């Protein structure tokens, strides 16, 4: 190769490079205009979940310390208005609200899009089944006494007959500090939907030591919830004693 032909090749290469730059070819460094995900799209749903919910409700909506959200039964049961209110204003002691503030949070449109899309993407009416017990405890329902014995029958194998936990079992559910941190609704939801990701069954079972298909009836659920709630000693009552 003569020096001249080498020179021509180099010149050609440089011109080609210049042309690429000039024509704005899609070089890897070319900035791409960021596109805000459309409200209601899967990308928007995932962003909302990743930024606001993932910390407690777990990756993919399960295996977090708080209630799993990718639970078709739960999503089929919770009324939309309740869901939106919880996301917006928070709930109980530890669920913060994500209302819009000047610098963060979610607008009402974003919240309602989120509660709709979570049901689209993670819900599954077939898996949820029909005849779900009511989400909220019916007012004035629940018998504490029957609740106690129902709990011992169904839940005693793991949590102990008195609910105070068992060696090698699942721990206490009557610990007063625990009851102070969770709301009545959270207790009821756990009775109904369990924590299937952590091995706690739904109200349909199967409960350990019980035959397959034996589950809690709606009134059983009311009773157990009422009993769990009755174990809570409020701080003022504690002070009185």
């Amino acid at each position, binding site marked *: 190769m003569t020096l001249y032909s080498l020179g021509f090749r180099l010149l050609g290469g440089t011109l080609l490079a210049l042309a690429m730059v000039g024509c704005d070819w899609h070089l890897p460094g070319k900035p791409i205009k960021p596109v805000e995900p459309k409200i209601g799209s899967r990308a928007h749903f995932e962003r909302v979940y990743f930024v606001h919910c993932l910390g407690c409700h777990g990756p993919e909506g399960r295996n977090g310390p708080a209630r799993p959200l990718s639970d078709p039964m739960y999503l089929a049961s919770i009324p939309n208005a309740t869901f939106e209110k919880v996301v917006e204003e928070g709930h109980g002691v530890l669920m*913060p609200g994500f209302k819009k*503030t*000047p*610098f963060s949070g979610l607008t009402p449109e974003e919240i309602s899009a989120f509660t709709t899309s979570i049901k689209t993407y993670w819900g599954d009416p077939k898996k949820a089944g029909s005849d779900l017990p009511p989400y909220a405890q019916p007012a004035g329902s629940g018998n504490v006494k029957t609740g106690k014995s129902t709990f011992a029958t169904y839940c005693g194998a793991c949590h102990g007959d008195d609910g105070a936990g068992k060696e090698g079992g699942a721990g206490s559910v009557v610990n007063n500090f625990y009851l102070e941190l969770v709301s009545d609704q959270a207790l009821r939801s756990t009775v109904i939907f369990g924590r299937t990701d952590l091995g706690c069954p739904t109200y349909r079972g199967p409960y350990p030591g019980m035959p397959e298909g034996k589950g809690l009836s709606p009134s059983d659920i009311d009773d157990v919830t009422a009993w769990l709630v009755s174990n809570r000693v409020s701080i003022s009552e504690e002070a009185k004693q």
Partner: protein
Amino acid sequence: MTDSEHANSEETSTSSRRGFMFKIGAGLVGIGGLLIAAPVLGYIFAPAFTNWEKRRAWIDLGEIKQFPVGETVLAVYKNPIFGPTVGEANEIPCWVRRTSDSTFQIFYINCAHLGCPVHWFAESKLFMCPCHGGVYYEDGSRASGPPPRGLYEYDWQVVRSKLYVYGGEIPNLQIPGKTPKDDITPLTVDGVGYLDGKAVKST
């Protein structure tokens, strides 16, 4: 007088004239230079010598009922001192904490360490700074990290159930936010001057 002597004397007279001319020239250039330098330097250094205090002002943050007692919320106000090209940079945020029915604490957004924007967390009741990790308690006192002091606070007053903040400056250790009471211009509402929420005689 020979030719050469004649030339010499002529040279001396021109050179003495030249010396005189040189002095005049240097003097004129010097005076002219000073005349130019005064406005140029004044122009460059003006921001350092301007009495900005005079142009600071009370800014309406709105009805006090929008600030719940015991909560800390972000409020944004338009800075009163700005030029024509300020753009979005005069949207100044501040943290408003209502401590009781009638008392407030208004914190500058700027961390006392190096001025980054601090972020309020209502759950843990802490301000955190994203730059070097300064942390403050809800009353603005320093909790941990590199800041040498607590958060800077604004002067504020409540007049006719509206909250007013004395804005217009970025704080630092030499300009620590609050202004000596004598230097504050009273807020004028319907021709009446107010300081500390009380009507004062306008001077």
